[in-house]
């Protein structure tokens, strides 16, 4: 605690985390209701930022009892999702592949994994229900963005006739942003973050993806976004994620 800035990579005017938060928040543009799951400080921050920009937006933050609209226990969120009322959810995991399958279960064989993780939680069902799913894998390397996940915890590639109110749409990493095309079952690179390049993304990505004519650069956080992140977002985040709020979003 002696140096709250230790280990935080910064550009001159914004941190890596602020770039991810601002970029993610822009992906929520057409939603009104988001749930931020357990252990998700950046998605929670992005939701809180989106709330600041769009008063019609609301994010339920796991770990903040004041930010839950659920009164009927654990099943209610899944019913809401099926009703088409859950617009935004951000999923992480230990692996993601080129068909937007994610792995939350384990590395190696199944069931006796070499390295076991927590499990699938609601993802297997929510991949068909949440309108706008953002896959968030900040660590962008070939062990994480793989050709095929060791265990498909959740996959959006199901029968065309199956009931669906949503699917994965985006994959955001420390290096870039991809858009997912469910029809083509492929990612397309949308933009690379400042300081990164297409070549670097190719080098560190285990799956093949499409590229448009001109690779855009991810827009940096605006001054307004940075002020919101460092002000009201940080304040709201300090309840469910006190350490993250203190360390990563310290006012510059």
């Amino acid at each position, binding site marked *: 605690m002696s140096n709250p800035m230790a280990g935080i990579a910064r550009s001159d005017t914004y941190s890596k985390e602020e770039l991810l938060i601002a970029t993610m928040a822009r992906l929520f543009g057409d939603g009104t209701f988001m749930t931020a799951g*357990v*252990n998700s400080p950046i998605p929670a921050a992005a939701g809180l930022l989106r709330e600041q920009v769009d008063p019609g937006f609301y994010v339920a933050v796991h*770990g903040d*009892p004041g930010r839950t609209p*659920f*009164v*009927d*226990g*654990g*099943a*209610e969120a*899944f019913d809401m999702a*099926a009703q088409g009322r859950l617009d935004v959810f951000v999923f992480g995991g230990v692996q993601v592949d080129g068909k937007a*399958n994610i792995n*939350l*279960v*384990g590395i190696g064989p*199944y*069931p*006796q*994994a*070499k*390295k*076991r*993780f*927590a*499990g*699938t*939680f*609601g*993802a*297997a*069902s*929510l*991949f*068909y*229900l949440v309108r706008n799913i953002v896959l968030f894998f900040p660590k962008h390397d070939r062990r994480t963005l793989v050709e095929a996940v060791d*265990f*498909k*915890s*959740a*996959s*959006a*590639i*199901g*029968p065309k*006739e*199956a*009931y*669906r109110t949503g699917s994965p749409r985006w994959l955001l990493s420390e290096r870039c942003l991809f858009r997912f095309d469910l029809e083509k079952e492929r990612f397309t690179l949308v933009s690379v973050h400042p300081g990164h390049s297409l070549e670097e993304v190719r080098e560190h990505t285990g799956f093949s993806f499409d590229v448009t004519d001109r690779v855009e650069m991810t827009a940096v956080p605006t001054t307004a976004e940075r002020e919101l992140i460092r002000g009201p977002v940080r304040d709201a985040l300090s309840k469910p994620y006190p350490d993250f709020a203190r360390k990563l979003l310290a006012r510059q």
Partner: protein
Amino acid sequence: MSSPRFEANAAALAALIPDGASVAVPSDNSGVPMALTLEIIRAGKRGLRMIGGPTAGIQVDMLIGAGCVASVEAAGVSLGPRGLAPRFCAAVEGGEIKIIDSTCPATHAGYIAGEKRLPFMAVHGIFGSDVLTHRADWKIITNPFPPHQPLVVVPAINPDISIFHAPLADEHGNVWVGKRRELKSMARAAGKVLVTVDKIVPEDLAGNAELAPGLLASHYIDRIALAAGGAWPTALPPVHPEDGAELDAYAAAAQTREGFDRYLHRALTPRGPAQ
């Protein structure tokens, strides 16, 4: 109508759980019966088949570490913000327990079917997931109604025993679970329901219009024992938050076999939040 029997303490409830029983438990911060868990460990229960509600946390991790568990059916087992559940992960990696992976709404559907004594219930999505691949007990059917689309169905979950901790019971045996509606389904689906509570009041809570909607009525419950602070160190909304320091201590200790054993020894010796 049957009424629950009141037992003197959590140990008396633990004694009612046979080795090998399937035991449904709440997700973290939903009334996890930690005091009862310690009594189950103390009683040396073996071969328990734990079922999450739909997830599990420190409770199941401790039971695994203590050697009480044969299998875990859950949508996730973790220490929440404190990361992976170390004894769970080690036991799965070591092949010491059987893991039956689920996904949250499928487990909820199983309990709801169980509560209604329906043989199955449908769940949206899940197609393409390896959870489905490895669940020989789940099926894809065709909706009998137009447009006859495919649907995943899961069988009812009817655990031998459901256990949980609640803030409040009355002397008639009604238990207030508040917003944790899944506890109602898990209780009604179970063969036997054992509950510890923070407090027992004389007033018939079923006659209290404000509290009644959050009640699990007495006829669903077999035994109740007073165990003040029985969810500690997990949170029991709206009564108390988690004891973060204690949970940190567990998460750190449980990283190794030895650390876990030391933690457990300490936890079994003086007992509870008073220490």
